[in-house]
């Protein structure tokens, strides 16, 4: 489900079925690396929105968590704030999807699952190649989700 009033309404009707929150992490930089962060943001948002289409009955796609890459304030703390709130509510699983490898260092601080997917140079691909590449990525990503759900249910 998306972060739209219509979907949230559906979510509130049957919250017991939607137990997974997906938070895309979007890096923003205005110094050098501006283009890279833009590419990462584009890739992550495309990936998560496609993923939402496939698994919309069980995941809630939150608005992207955008952060300044050169921020003087600890970004992880802020995300942990989100996480605590989400886990306190009905969500059993929280997934973070990002292309920014910096998050790998902070993975241990987070309870949710961090999925780091290196971004692909989509702007240089034609429409058809883009589609098949994305489809492939999404299929693999979906399996991670399904596996995680299965594992949690087996426990």
């Amino acid at each position: 489900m998306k972060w739209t009033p219509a979907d949230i309404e559906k979510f509130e009707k049957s919250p017991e079925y939607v137990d997974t929150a997906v938070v895309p992490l979007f890096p923003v930089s205005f110094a050098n690396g501006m283009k890279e962060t833009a590419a990462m943001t584009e890739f992550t948002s495309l990936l998560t929105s496609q993923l939402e289409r496939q698994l919309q009955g069980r995941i809630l796609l939150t608005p992207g968590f955008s952060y300044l890459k050169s921020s003087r304030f600890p970004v992880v703390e802020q995300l942990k704030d989100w996480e605590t709130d989400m886990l306190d509510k009905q969500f059993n699983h929280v997934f973070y999807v990002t292309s920014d490898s910096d998050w790998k260092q902070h993975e241990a601080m987070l309870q949710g699952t961090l999925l780091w997917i290196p971004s692909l140079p989509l702007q240089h691909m034609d429409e058809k190649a883009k589609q098949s590449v994305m489809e492939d990525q999404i299929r693999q990503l979906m399996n991670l989700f399904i596996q995680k759900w299965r594992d949690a249910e087996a426990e």
Partner: protein
Amino acid sequence: MSKDRVSRRQFLNYTLLGVGGFMAAGMVMPMARFAIDPVLKANASGDFVATKVKVADITEEPQRVDFKFDQVDAWYESEETGTAWVYKNENGEIVALSPVCKHLGCTVDWNADEKNQNMFFCPCHYGLYEKDGTNVPGTPPLAPLDVYPYQEKDGILYLGKAQPREGA
């Protein structure tokens, strides 16, 4: 000099008439075009969208068929990809099922669960559908999968808008 000379008055009259006529036509023509536009626009196939699949290539095993259609979302027009599961049933009729789970809208997959062979399977809450799209009682979905109306034209499969069916 010919006998019937055109007088200055006549000449001016003709010219004015000609130019005036053109101007009037220039104004009326677009209006008329706008007025009858819906008539000219009607396309033969209606809302049916062409897929890349040849009818002859459809087997008894459901295959995924992607097709593209334009969708207008308020002011934003985008090209959406639709998907259908297409196969021929025992009677040789084409069946095109929507992959959208009737429970909460996840995408169902054919034959994806080892425990439930030859069924449509929803990975989100383990909903099951028979090959003909009927929901299996006891699993979350309460209605069968939607069916696309289809047309065959020049050997190519055309799909319409998915229609819901009554629950099992």
